[in-house]
């Protein structure tokens, strides 16, 4: 069952309609937009070889420095395309209208991108970091042969799940046991988590990248959610989740998110026995002072918060072993 979900993730794609920015148009009439299907687990710069042919005859002379924007908002190229879409389009826009620029790279905002090499470097770096979080060291990635690393990257670039499945065991990445399946079947998957000297299983650390948009007012429909103006409106948390294993309790997606955003805990706080140092939460109308998680999107799916976190991780993570979570919250009243 798990394999099927992963297949859907790898096959997930977003239809893009790419417009050439008017300042880059040196031809008359201006070219029509390019229609491209972008893999969710891929990155925008990897689409450039597909897009450029549409526009090359319209470009002014000179060197290219390519970047994308969404309604004027420059897009960070190292965030997977699917995550950008889930985060920036509260109401999914299909096709997603983006603008491509070949000049005027905003290097005060975006880190430089030298095409595929930069994207690959970013991928490998994220993979190392994820491995460090899961295994406690990144020696498996570091010790991987050049050609294996190349092949792994190529499998991701091409969306080749079969090749990736063949190669990824070489990473010897620790896994998280599916909590739900262990309850129903006697045969449980190998649990590999960080162990201490005595060999006792401790908490596992899961690589998570959380992107949070906070909206100040209430909204009924997603189309009422205002546009993002600047990246400063989005809180980015690159922080591992400490996966807690407790007897008789399932660690859910909600538990995971709340561990990263403790200020959004409402009545669900696990500190019922402890003394509260914050006066605000004693108020009768508790929800006033805490925010509210309105929407959680992973791989384009609005995931129910009660789902076991282990299932979410094992099935919805990206090829670099990071789970990217887009969250829309209603900010607490202050």
């Amino acid at each position, binding site marked *: 069952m798990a394999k099927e979900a992963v297949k859907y993730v790898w096959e997930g794609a977003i239809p893009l309609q790419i417009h050439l920015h008017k300042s880059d148009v040196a031809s008359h009439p201006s070219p029509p937009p390019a229609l491209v299907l972008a893999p969710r687990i891929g990155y925008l710069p990897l689409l450039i070889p597909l897009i450029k042919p549409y526009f090359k005859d319209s470009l002014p002379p000179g060197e290219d420095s390519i970047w994308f924007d969404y309604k004027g908002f420059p897009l*960070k190229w190292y965030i997977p395309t699917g995550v950008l879409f889930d985060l920036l389009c509260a109401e999914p826009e299909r096709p997603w209208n983006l603008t491509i620029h070949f000049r005027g790279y905003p*290097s*005060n*905002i*975006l*880190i*430089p991108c030298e095409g595929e090499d930069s994207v690959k470097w970013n991928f490998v770096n994220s993979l*190392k*970091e994820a491995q*460090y*979080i899961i295994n406690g060291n*990144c020696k498996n990635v570091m010790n991987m042969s050049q050609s294996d690393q190349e092949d792994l990257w190529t499998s991701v670039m091409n969306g080749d799940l079969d090749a990736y499945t063949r190669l990824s065991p070489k990473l010897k990445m620790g896994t998280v046991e599916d909590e739900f399946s262990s309850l129903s079947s006697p045969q449980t998957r190998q649990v590999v988590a960080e162990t201490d000297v005595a060999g006792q299983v401790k908490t596992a650390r899961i*690589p998570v990248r959380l992107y*949070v*948009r*906070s909206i100040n007012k209430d909204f009924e429909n997603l189309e009422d959610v205002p546009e993002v103006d*600047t*990246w*400063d*409106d*989005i*809180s*980015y948390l*690159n*922080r*591992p989740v400490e996966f807690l294993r407790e007897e008789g309790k399932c660690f859910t997606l909600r538990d995971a998110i709340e561990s990263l*955003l*403790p*200020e959004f805990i409402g009545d669900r706080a696990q500190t019922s026995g402890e003394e509260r*140092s*914050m006066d605000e939460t004693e108020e009768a109308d508790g929800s006033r002072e805490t*925010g509210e998680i309105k929407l959680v999107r992973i791989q384009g799916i609005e995931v129910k918060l009660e789902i076991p976190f282990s299932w979410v991780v094992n099935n919805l993570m990206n090829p670099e072993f990071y789970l990217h979570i887009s969250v829309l919250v209603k*900010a*607490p009243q202050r």
Partner: protein
Amino acid sequence: MDSAREVSDGRLTVEGFSVASRAFADKWKIHNQSFPPWSWVPLINRTLLVSKKQEEGYLSLEKIIILSSLEEEIPEDESLNVATDCLEKEETVDHTILVPTMENEAHYYDFHIVYSASYKVPVLYFRGYCSGGEPLALDVIKKDVPSCSVSLLLESKWTFITQEEHPYLNRPWFKLHPCGTEDWIKLLSQSSSSSGCQMPIVLYLVSWFSVVGQVVGLRIPLEMLN
């Protein structure tokens, strides 16, 4: 939760980082008065409230002026040719500052020490810019750093510099890679303590910076290591 006063694996918890940062900033203020002090910037996010359980933040040292000269000059103490005047102070009293002339141009540097939750170690981020705000490229920055540090940079596998996005400020900064930090912190612990690999938390950042700072030309006085 973590009330230990020492670390033995070269890594810090987020609480440990907070403690180590304050200790580092305090010692710097006492022993390194030719520089402005480091300030602690709490992570009060515009969109999220900071968890009140622990104060998270980073250390910041900004607007350090380096007067870059066209000639390859090696200052006596081999540290940065830092002007003693600093923009942080309101006074207009000039100390021994060189007025920027055709020969030297003022370059400004910001340094942030940020905690990496993934690697559980501190990470140095830095950037340089001109008086007009234009960012400096890495090869220009390397010229501002004393030549011995440059070779340290190039030859050491510990000092890998890349341009990445600042984890909180949404801008490109230069970052010194954290891979291997816990290993050389353990090496430092072994040599300084007779009881094994223990590194007192209050000395963690001082020890860390004694190595890392050199890469960007910032030396710390030996007294800070006591």
